[in-house]
């Protein structure tokens, strides 16, 4: 309304410059990164031995149209190298400003799990080469639904509260990297408080979660067969392993400091899906950095632990004789299936960001992962990646 008034006034004055009428904005960002596994045999962040330019490279364009009276439409189109640069709508939504402090967005939006979720793909917006991956581990990042954001001040603090409601239908990485999943009735709240150099954030989300095991890459299909075997005799046991309309929840706490060029970031998160084989995942990272004019150096330490509490196997017999088949071990099978999901990761990163251009940053990063899967080995597997990338915005 005010904008229309301004345009009207300017038009009346005969001085309307084009920018007040040009209500469509085009912005974009891009990253080009090359990386390689320099130590170890396991692939990490999509990189293997040999240099790849594709895994973390991306290009995006955002078109935003202001329709006046607080209404706007935005679409962000993204091409990821890891997806052969196929073009996808990453965000597509309508926004309506209810008043100066509250805005509703409806459409395809980012799930605000983490502090940096909203601009995960915009490398220029953060110091690191990539957000710490043990914490930023949930690969599905967008949902369809509503978001309402309210900004207000509490004394000298800026406070932002966001609530979301919606659903997700797509893929998650539980067994493979593409397990079909649906999250229904997803809702969540997050609250961010900022005081000059200090920011704190808390988030809670939940959803009715279903994940199919049909893409299990295991050639022996141990899990699928195990569930079928246990479930054939004890349907309830199978129920407590499958992920079908089970309550999934996410909780996170984080804080950041940007004081006298000292940068500190930390986040702690937990992910859980009740009554399912999905392990309880707890993870955190702490990052410290220092800004020297155009250079910023950083180091990150990360830890994650996926553990599966067993509250059910005591209901199952240790052995069971099946006529014409033989003896099976329901309790042991059940315990092994739970244990197969346990994992522990320690990671360490050092890196540097160099703002070599007003709109572009060059980043060098070395990250080492140490992964322990107790069900397969008592030894952890080490792998490290070195990457160089350029992030820019336009």
């Amino acid at each position, binding site marked *: 309304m005010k904008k229309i008034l301004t345009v009207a006034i300017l038009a009346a004055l005969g001085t309307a410059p084009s920018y007040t009428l040009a209500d469509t904005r085009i912005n974009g960002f891009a990253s080009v990164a090359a990386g390689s596994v320099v130590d170890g045999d396991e692939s990490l962040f999509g990189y293997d031995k040999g240099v790849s330019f594709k895994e973390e490279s991306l290009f995006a364009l955002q078109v935003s149209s202001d329709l006046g009276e607080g209404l706007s439409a935005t679409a962000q189109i993204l091409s990821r190298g890891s997806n052969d640069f196929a073009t996808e709508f990453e965000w597509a939504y309508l926004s309506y400003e209810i008043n100066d402090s509250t805005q509703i967005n409806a459409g395809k939006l980012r799930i605000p799990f983490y502090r940096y979720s909203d601009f995960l793909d915009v490398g220029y917006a953060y110091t690191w080469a990539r957000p710490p991956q043990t914490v930023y581990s949930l690969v599905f990042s967008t949902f369809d639904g509503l978001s309402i954001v309210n900004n207000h001040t509490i004394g000298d603090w800026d406070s932002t509260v966001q609530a979301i409601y919606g659903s997700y239908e797509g893929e998650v990485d539980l067994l493979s990297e593409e397990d079909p999943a649906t999250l229904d009735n997803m809702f969540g709240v997050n609250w961010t408080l900022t005081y000059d150099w200090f920011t704190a954030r808390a988030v809670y989300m939940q959803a009715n979660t279903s994940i199919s095991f049909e893409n299990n890459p295991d050639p022996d299909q141990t899990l699928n067969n195990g569930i079928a075997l246990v479930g054939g005799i004890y349907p309830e046991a199978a129920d407590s392993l499958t992920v079908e309309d089970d309550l999934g929840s996410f909780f996170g706490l984080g804080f950041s400091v940007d004081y006298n060029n000292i940068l500190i970031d930390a986040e702690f998160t937990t992910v859980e899906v009740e009554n399912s084989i999905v392990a309880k995942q707890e993870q955190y990272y702490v990052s410290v950095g220092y800004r020297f004019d155009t250079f910023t150096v950083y180091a990150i330490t990360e830890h994650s632990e996926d553990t599966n509490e067993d509250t059910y196997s005591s209901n199952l017999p240790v052995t069971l004789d099946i006529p014409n088949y033989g003896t099976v071990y329901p309790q042991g099978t059940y315990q092994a299936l739970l244990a197969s999901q346990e994992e522990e990761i320690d990671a360490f990163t050092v890196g540097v960001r160099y703002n070599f251009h007003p709109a572009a940053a060059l980043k060098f990063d070395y990250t080492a992962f140490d992964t322990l899967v107790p069900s397969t080995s008592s030894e952890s597997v080490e792998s490290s990646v070195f990457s160089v990338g350029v992030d820019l*915005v336009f």
Partner: protein
Amino acid sequence: MKLFKTKLCVAVLGLASVVAQAEIAVVVHPSNAAAVDGTSLSRIFLGKAKNFSGGGQAVAINQAESSPITEEFNSKVLKKSGSQLKAYWSKLVFTGKGTPPKALSSDAEVISFVSSNPNSIGYVDAASVTGAVKVVGKY
């Protein structure tokens, strides 16, 4: 780099004292009675505040990103480097949470815009100020 070159030229010319950075004048429409201190100024230009302290809507007007007056405003008032500011706005722009102020390309354009838009606020080199606008602060 640009700054370095400028400094170098100036030093070569032996005019180092003249370059002393320009004083910035923050200007509003003459009818605007709001008091604007450094904190509220910074909040308005960072999109955190959308109103003047008196309650009227505030429309911030930037100058071109590469202009020396903008660089000075960013460092003196917003206390951020150009890169930090760009990162700050990227976070808002690509998440639909805000857009940076419109930018005009000269002191004269800012003065002309502010003098005809009662809710606007801009910054210019103090030496460029005319009677068409009101100065609410110098930095």
